[in-house]
């Protein structure tokens, strides 16, 4: 018939009419339409049609059939049952299915569980780091003042000169509160002669606690930190010192120089703050304890332990302070030249944790890298799931066929599959939580942090989890669901479905490639990081670092040092000992300006400076390339420099520098020798000009070269002499090579983490691979039987299985290798002294992947290849 009723109106009625009315009403409407069409013309009839449809709108149109009316049910009534009504059925079927295919269920639950567990842990970790110092009231107005030193290159220091606090407080109006704080690490706190602890302490203004609002549990917050020789400690420390006793009013000694009375107890510091001291002493006491830090209003040195926190007045912008107030400070307290050198800026407190230039210990880019790895793992698990379930779909073709013949619609089949996915994901989540709980202590230990995992109180986790679950369910469930629902029932029942009809075997290939690529990426990453770390720890630093024991020197009077040195040399296991300020390789080395020989201007580069006695060079076996070692002295007379310094001075030969005068750090001396370049910092940074001079008042450490043969006795001897010399201190020692390893702490952490993730990714991938190969083996059961009967050998059948995966693996490698090269090259650029990305690493990566996949695939395909063909062919 040419003239059809309006399609949209029909569609509308079809949508909303109750099933038992649908046909009748549509029939009526169409009949009326035809009659009216004949009578008045079709355009009018169409109008009437719409009018009728509009007038049909009434609850009776869509209300279900009343019960009292006897009415035979029709097929069409159930055409579109609501998915919600079907839910209980879906559940029942899903449970039966999962129960029947236990291996399949297990593989999926385990791999999804691992993926989700990683996602939960990574999420918690990232959230933990992002939450650092975000709990302070008015945190948008809290800033730390930091120093920019504009030299030939700009350096940053989180500290400020010590008069900064007073200057800001008195001369400027932009600040609501200014709190100075001096951090002193590992001081000895003595409660009684037998009870001593090493503690990180801080000297702070009362305003500091107001800015950061760490609340007091006991004591008066109005007077806290006002009165000299008082102290606040945290609840945790109070329990450690005094147990159940009341800590208020107790007297403790801090090092030898200070006696304080506890006047208040702070609530324990939250885990997510970088302000870690647990003992606070009024700032005024600093001059009794460490006079040199506040000796005079000395604007010309910056120590990163001397910091200044401010709270701006409401409405004052940080930019305006950066642009006007702080430059004004520079020009007020420095002459024109130095004002250019010393510049100050504000750093928001939320940035303190993240800024690597200012000693922030976590870079945000690392967090994003973790997030990315988490995403990768989730993708891998989803890929696994999709792979396995599309493969399974083939085995289910009969079931689907029967369902379709019985009247199942696509929607119903799709939702049934989604229910199955949701069930598996639900189980996986439980597994994941178990795994995450088990892994949490390990993660905490690795990162030296204090993460907790509580899905019931953590609002972020509560929102994150459902979102993650929904995403996983939809990504991994919808594709197989659609495939399953699309089957042609006749084909399915005849068992004539082939891989091709399953749709997108190529897509599944793509997924396997993705998986392999992710695994290879992580493997290459692991190999590169491990190699670089091994290189930086085993490479020649240019000095002897083995069998060297490092001891602190709490007090460096000339006589003390001499006595100690003499006592050490009497010990049988000691080969030599030396005193100096920082170890030959240290993370921080002070640097200063140099004026060489008769040149009139200071050099444009700055030179690192170490103070050490004459035994430094022989003890660490640093080779001299010109001149001689320092002569014994206690004050600055002679310098030795390294080769880089000679180069920086633009001299042609090392000999030229020997015997010349130089003014370094404002102090004149003669350069007497040139050392071969050695790594005085980590491999992250290059070797720069360095000089060493004698200055006993700077000596803070002692290195003892020992004979490893009778180490315990030697260490005991060292402790005895040391403790006799410093009775009020606690003896600690460390081996130099261990200390050097600590430079790479963050890198080691990354390595462990990526190792773990690579392991998990590979494991998940293997599970998927195993699932796929088992499925393939079942699929090719008959084929193998026929081949064997016709005389195929076992290896040729094995090859049948392997060649497919070998190809995918190679494609994955081609994709992963350049990406890995790019990423890891970027990482290696953090090191000045680095390994090269050779073909070896990539070859090793592919060998590892091949071996692992062969192991996974091998067993199952071997079993298939060795099977007696009679078993598979018997039924025909």
């Amino acid at each position, binding site marked *: *018939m040419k003239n059809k*009723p309006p399609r949209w109106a029909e569609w509308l009625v079809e949508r909303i009419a109750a099933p038992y009315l649908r*046909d*009748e*009403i*549509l*029939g*009526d*409407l*169409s*009949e*009326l339409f*035809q*009659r009216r069409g004949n009578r008045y013309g079709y355009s009018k009839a169409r109008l009437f049609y719409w*009018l*009728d449809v509009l*007038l*049909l*709108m*009434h609850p*009776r*149109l869509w209300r279900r059939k*009343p019960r*009292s*009316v006897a009415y035979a049910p029709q097929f069409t009534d159930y055409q579109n049952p609501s998915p919600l009504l079907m839910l209980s059925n879906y559940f029942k079927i899903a449970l039966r299915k999962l129960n029947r295919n236990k291996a399949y269920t297990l593989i999926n639950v385990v791999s999804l569980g691992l993926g989700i567990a990683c996602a939960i842990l990574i999420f918690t970790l990232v959230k933990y780091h992002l939450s650092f110092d975000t709990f302070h009231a008015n945190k948008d107005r809290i800033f730390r003042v930091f120093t920019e030193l504009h030299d030939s290159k700009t350096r940053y220091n989180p500290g400020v000169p010590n008069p900064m606090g007073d200057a800001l407080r008195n001369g400027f109006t932009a600040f609501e509160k200014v709190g100075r704080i001096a951090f002193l690490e590992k001081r000895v706190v003595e409660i009684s002669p037998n009870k001593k602890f090493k503690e990180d302490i801080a000297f702070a203004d009362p305003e500091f606690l107001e800015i950061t609002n760490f609340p007091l549990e006991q004591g008066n917050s109005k007077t806290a930190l006002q009165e000299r020789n008082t102290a606040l400690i945290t609840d945790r420390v109070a329990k450690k010192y005094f147990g159940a006793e009341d800590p208020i009013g107790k007297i403790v000694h801090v090092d030898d120089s200070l006696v304080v009375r506890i006047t208040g107890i702070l609530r324990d510091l939250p885990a997510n703050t970088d302000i870690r001291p647990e003992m606070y002493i009024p700032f005024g006491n600093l001059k009794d304890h460490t006079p040199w830090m506040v000796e005079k209003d000395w604007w010309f040195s910056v120590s990163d332990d001397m910091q200044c926190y401010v709270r701006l007045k409401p409405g004052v912008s940080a930019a305006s302070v950066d642009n006007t107030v702080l430059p004004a400070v520079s020009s007020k307290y420095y002459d024109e030249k130095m004002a250019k050198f010393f510049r100050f800026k504000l750093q928001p407190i939320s940035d303190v944790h993240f800024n690597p230039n200012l000693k922030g210990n976590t870079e945000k880019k690392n967090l994003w890298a973790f997030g990315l790895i988490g995403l990768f793992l989730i993708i891998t698990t989803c890929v696994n799931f999709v792979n396995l379930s599309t493969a399974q779909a083939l085995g289910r073709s009969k079931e689907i066929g029967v369902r379709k013949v019985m009247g199942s619609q696509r929607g119903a089949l799709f939702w049934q599959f989604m229910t199955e996915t949701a069930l598996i994901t639900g189980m996986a989540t439980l597994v994941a939580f178990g795994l995450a709980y088990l892994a949490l202590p390990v993660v905490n230990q690795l990162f030296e942090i204090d993460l907790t995992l509580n899905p019931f109180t953590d609002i972020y986790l509560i929102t994150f989890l459902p979102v993650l679950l929904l995403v996983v369910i939809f990504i991994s469930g919808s594709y197989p669901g659609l495939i399953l629902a699309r089957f042609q029932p006749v084909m399915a029942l005849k068992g004539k479905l082939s891989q091709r009809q399953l749709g997108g075997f190529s897509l599944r290939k793509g997924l396997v490639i993705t998986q392999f690529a992710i695994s290879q990426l992580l493997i290459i990453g692991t190999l590169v990081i491990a190699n670089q770390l091994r290189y930086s720890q085993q490479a020649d630093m240019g000095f002897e670092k083995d069998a060297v024991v490092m001891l602190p020197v709490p007090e460096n009077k000339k006589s003390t040092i001499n006595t100690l040195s003499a006592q050490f040399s009497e010990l049988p296991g000691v080969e030599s000992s030396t005193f100096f300020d920082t170890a030959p390789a240290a993370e921080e080395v002070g640097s200063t300006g140099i004026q060489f020989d008769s040149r009139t201007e200071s050099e444009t580069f700055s030179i690192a400076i170490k103070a050490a006695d004459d035994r430094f060079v022989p003890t660490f076996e640093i080779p001299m390339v010109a001149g001689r070692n320092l002569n014994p002295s206690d004050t600055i007379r002679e310098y030795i420099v390294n080769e880089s310094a000679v180069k920086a001075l633009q001299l042609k030969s090392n000999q030229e520098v020997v015997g010349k005068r130089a003014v370094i750090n404002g102090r004149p001396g003669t350069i007497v020798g040139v050392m071969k370049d050695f790594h005085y910092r980590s491999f992250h940074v290059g070797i720069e000009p360095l000089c060493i001079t004698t200055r006993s008042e700077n000596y803070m450490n002692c290195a003892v070269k020992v004979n490893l043969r009778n180490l315990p006795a030697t260490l005991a001897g060292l402790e005895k002499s040391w403790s006799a010399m410093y009775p009020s201190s606690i003896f600690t020692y460390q081996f130099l090579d261990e200390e050097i390893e600590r430079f790479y702490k963050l890198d080691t952490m990354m390595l462990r983490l990526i190792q773990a993730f690579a392991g998990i990714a590979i494991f998940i991938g293997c599970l998927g691979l195993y699932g796929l190969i088992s499925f393939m083996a079942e699929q090719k059961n008959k084929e193998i039987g026929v081949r064997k009967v016709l005389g195929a050998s076992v290896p040729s059948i094995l090859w049948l299985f392997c060649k497919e995966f070998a190809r995918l693996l190679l494609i994955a490698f081609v994709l992963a290798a350049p990406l890995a090269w790019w990423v890891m090259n970027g990482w290696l650029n953090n090191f000045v002294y680095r390994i090269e990305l050779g073909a070896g690493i990539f070859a090793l990566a592919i060998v590892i992947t091949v071996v692992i996949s062969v192991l996974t695939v091998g067993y199952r395909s071997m079993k298939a290849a060795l099977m007696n063909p009679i078993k598979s062919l018997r039924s025909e």
Partner: protein
Amino acid sequence: MKGTQLGEFEELVLLTIALLFDDAYSVAVVETLSEKLERPMSLGAVHRTMQRLEEKGMVSSRFGDATAERGGRSKRLFTVTLAGEQALREMRRIRNELWAGIPKTAWSGL
């Protein structure tokens, strides 16, 4: 008149169903009624009334044949049940009684 309330429109539809006897389905009812009442009827109104009548047990329905005009969909044919017939007769009786009781002088104009 207990329990069997019959609205004015319901009565008209019921009467039409009775009138059409063997061919009483919604479209026929709509057309007959619009003809008799000389005003257009909406399918919806008739449909709902017929549903209501069926719920009250005054009509019963069965499926009839499908025609090309209807796009191959079958129609539903209605028959007046005994209860329906009784309700109609009752209404008529009441009306007759009322008519008979009206005094002639009531029609003042005539």
